[in-house]
């Protein structure tokens, strides 16, 4: 009889209100979703500044999201931001490398030659924006376009340091983690980027 009693009480415990496993399972994805929703637009714009093409930028951001989710979602959420931007910057660099290889290959093929500088004006850059018609907004849009062009002209590491520090607001340590370099290098890259940008844009701004 005592055995039955024990079994009965054990069964009662087992049969009691169990913790919802689904809730526990979905806790991380919800947090991750919140994080991704917070940074996705800025990440896209940063990728677009670097790559110019919105489709390429979207692909790189999507890949970075998937890689972060698959490989690093179990890591503490405080690490997600530098990890995400490290993945993103690696993706941008890979794509730029592929582009340069393709460009080199294309020069061997007959047909219209590409601009050797690779800095030809995108025709869409000259199309007037049909959105805002307020002069201030137009001026802001032009200022942003100039900033983007100057950023593209910067060396990649300086551009990364400037965008991560200034646009994303990462501190020096997180920027170093995202760029995979020392904090001293981040400071140097950032300082040079600001100096160059100010020299180029100072007259216009």
């Amino acid at each position, binding site marked *: 009889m005592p055995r039955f009693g024990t079994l009965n009480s054990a069964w009662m415990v087992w049969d009691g209100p169990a913790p919802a496993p689904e809730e526990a399972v979905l806790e991380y994805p919800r947090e991750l979703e919140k994080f991704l929703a917070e940074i996705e*637009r800025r990440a*896209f714009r940063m990728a677009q500044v670097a790559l110019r093409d919105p489709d390429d930028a979207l692909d790189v*951001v*999507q890949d970075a999201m998937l890689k972060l989710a698959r490989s690093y979602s179990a890591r503490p959420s405080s690490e997600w931001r530098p990890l995400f931007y490290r993945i993103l910057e690696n993706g941008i660099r890979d794509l730029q490398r592929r582009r340069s290889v393709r460009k080199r290959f294309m020069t061997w093929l007959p047909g219209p030659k590409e601009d050797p500088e690779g800095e030809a004006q995108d025709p869409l850059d000259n199309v007037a924006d049909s959105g805002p018609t307020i002069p201030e907004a137009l001026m802001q849009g032009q200022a942003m376009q100039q900033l983007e062009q100057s950023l593209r002209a910067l060396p990649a590491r300086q551009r990364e340091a400037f965008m991560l520090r*200034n*646009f994303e607001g990462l501190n020096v340590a997180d920027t170093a983690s995202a760029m995979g370099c020392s904090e001293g290098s981040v400071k140097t890259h950032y300082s040079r980027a600001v100096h160059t940008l100010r020299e180029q844009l100072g007259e216009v701004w």
Partner: protein
Amino acid sequence: MSEQRIGEPNASFEERSRALFQDSVEGLDYALRSRLTQARNAAIEAVAAKRRPWFTRLGVLAPAGVTAAAVLGTVLWLGSPLGQHAATVSDGQPNLEDLELVASSDEGAGDALDMLQDDIEFYDWADKAANSGSAASG
């Protein structure tokens, strides 16, 4: 003092560039926002699928397992003699064993006829002897 004077324009430059960038982020059109949301959902689905307990994945694997077991069972059933028997009977076709029996019985009848043809003189004599014996006795 001189550092301050150098730092001030830098600070204003940084603020202005940050503000411009933020404006451009907020100015993204709805199509792009929608595509970003889709990308985010795909990433979340990937991590949710990874974290799902193993037994929930059986729900997906169960139909495949049942199908594989059914195919294997059918193959084994048809491959066995019992399966062949059942198949031939159910099809209404003559069984191989039955055909062998028929063939062997035909073969036996053929042997009997051959034997009759070989010893026909003996059987003729035996018949006559029997008839003459019966006539003599009668």
